[in-house]
């Protein structure tokens, strides 16, 4: 399986009136074909910022964007906006935003939404584009005649499927799913996740799956990146991270999820996430970590523990 995405040392700082917000610091992961990585963490941890940094959906007040983002073998970090737009965005990688349901223009028919990227970005003739739209909408589980309807005629779940269809119609290698099911019913959510699983195996697309719902993230994740205060504190295969997390924060995070099927004790992490303008010196989790030692006042490096396991914690490093 070849690599479709490699992120290294990715840094994203925003400029604000109170100072630079260090939203993403030193992010790192790789993604192969057909693989899914889940970015989990609480609000403000930087998962959305990381995704946006990769696909370059950034606001105007970016102070710094640096590191390396190699998409399908091409380094994109130094590309101009125009070049990125032309070559990468919506061709190699697409993005399903949070609350995508309201991102459909209510006065444009579904079919017109779907053919737009094909006609505009790929110069596909309209009749061919409509055929592809037809095929796409069936594969997301919507009957074909809904193509000719308007978004407001569709239910929430259907609209979400349309948005996902939109993200797949250009055959990208990577789709970023940012909270794709948060606004939906549990049943609809399950149906959409089923659909995403089928599409993945049929089309071979890779997902970057962002969610605050840790249980739901396990529905798709092959590997998991746990984020805290702009850092990826742990990165590893699903089998490891969900079952036996290493980083103290991951332990706390996974411990705080109440289980339906087991009677494990539920814990919580006291304290609150730090300010990203003035993060704590050294390890950003240190103020809340029960294993903290004086060494933690130094920034812990990213420690490789296995072929694809990384932790950013002194507990696992050189003494």
């Amino acid at each position: 399986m070849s690599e479709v995405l490699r992120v290294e040392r990715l840094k994203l700082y925003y400029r604000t009136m109170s100072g630079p917000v260090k939203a993403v610091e030193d992010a790192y992961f790789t993604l192969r074909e057909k693989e899914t990585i889940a970015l989990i963490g609480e609000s403000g941890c930087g998962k959305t910022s990381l995704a946006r940094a990769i696909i370059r959906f950034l606001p105007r007040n970016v102070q710094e964007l640096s590191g390396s983002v190699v998409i399908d073998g091409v380094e994109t970090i130094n590309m101009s906006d125009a070049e990125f737009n032309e070559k990468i965005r919506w061709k190699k990688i697409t993005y399903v935003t949070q609350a995508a349901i309201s991102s459909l223009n209510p006065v444009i028919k579904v079919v017109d939404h779907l053919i737009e990227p094909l006609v505009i970005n790929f110069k596909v003739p309209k009749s061919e584009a409509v055929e592809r739209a037809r095929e796409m909408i069936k594969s997301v589980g919507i009957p074909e005649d809904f193509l000719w309807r308007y978004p407001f005629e569709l239910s929430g779940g259907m609209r979400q499927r349309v948005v996902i269809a939109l993200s797949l119609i250009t055959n990208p290698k990577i789709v970023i799913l940012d909270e794709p099911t948060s606004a939906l019913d549990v049943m609809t959510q399950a149906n959409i996740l089923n659909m995403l699983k089928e599409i993945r195996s049929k089309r071979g697309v890779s997902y970057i799956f962002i969610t605050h719902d840790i249980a739901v993230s396990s529905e798709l994740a092959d590997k998991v990146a746990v984020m805290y205060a702009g850092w990826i504190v742990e990165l590893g295969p699903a089998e490891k991270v969900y079952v036996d997390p290493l980083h103290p924060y991951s332990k706390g995070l996974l411990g705080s999820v109440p289980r339906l099927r087991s009677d494990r004790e539920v814990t919580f992490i006291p304290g609150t996430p730090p300010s990203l303008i003035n993060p704590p010196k050294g390890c950003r989790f240190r103020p809340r970590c029960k294993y903290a030692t004086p060494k933690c006042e130094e920034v812990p490096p990213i420690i490789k523990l296995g072929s694809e396991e990384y932790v950013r914690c002194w507990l696992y490093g050189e003494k």
Partner: protein
Amino acid sequence: MERSETPQEEREELLVVKDLRVWHPVRRLFTTVGYIRAVDGVSFSVPRGKIVAIVGESGCGKTTLARAIMGLVPVTSGSIIFEGKDVTKLPRTVVRRWYTRQVGLVQQDPYAAMPPFMNIKTILEEPMKIHKVPKEERMKRIINMLTEVGLTPPEDFLYKYPHMLSGGQLQRVAIARALVLYPKLVLADEPVSMLDASVRIEILSMFKELQEKYKMSVLYITHDFATAKYFSSEIMVMYAGQIVEIGDTRDVIRAPKHPYTEALISVLPDPDPQNRFTLKKTLPGEPPNLMRPPPGCRLSPRCPYVMERCKTQEPPLLELPGNRKVKCWLYA
């Protein structure tokens, strides 16, 4: 529908809801063309000092049910009997002066639930001012409550405004506000769904401690079975405006009897790396139109176990051993 409560039991239960219906009229051009049957024949009881969860997906009527119990929406028929008095028949002034003191509300969005132009002290004082708690007592209660919900030192929070606090802190204030009149029943409508995962359990456990201390009953409304399991002792599952299953929380989750409950639970994941290899079994279709619900059992169009009877006759809430009630013909 069977009614097994005797009048005496009614009086021992804190809250008894009997055959409650809340129908919203749909008006077109001055005439009513139909009704949205948000709550359609709900009966249950809440004992003193217990936490009961009401679980269901959005649109199932749990929010409307909660509002009806609080007295915030008008009731179409049925009764809400609180400490022996039918609240739906009481004059409005009595409801406002007596009932609102007995029942507290914690809402989902802490930022929307607080007036942004009032500071924490004023917010907590309002219910007491309305119910004429003497001035000296008010400050005592405020300080006490802030400490109880974990906002210490309380003096630090008194003069802050809602936007200065985090979601978790503000929700604690909401809980303090609901408790400041020492109500007997608290309705918590998705109190932690807007908070971060790690904060949820913290808040719920604090809430649980307070509930035990003050011996209040709590109606915990949520779509999240997992927190319901953690927090409540009894659970009620709602679908299309009706209660389809009632029982002890752990039992219901471990062994759901109603097809809907079973489907709902099977669809909810735990963090498990194996999840990604399997497709979830879901119910086809969507919840029914509440203006024109299907005849018979409301789940019949989607139910994997549907029988002929289900399509024409609405099943009653059948009592099963082990403190379980199920609204399904499978158990007749």
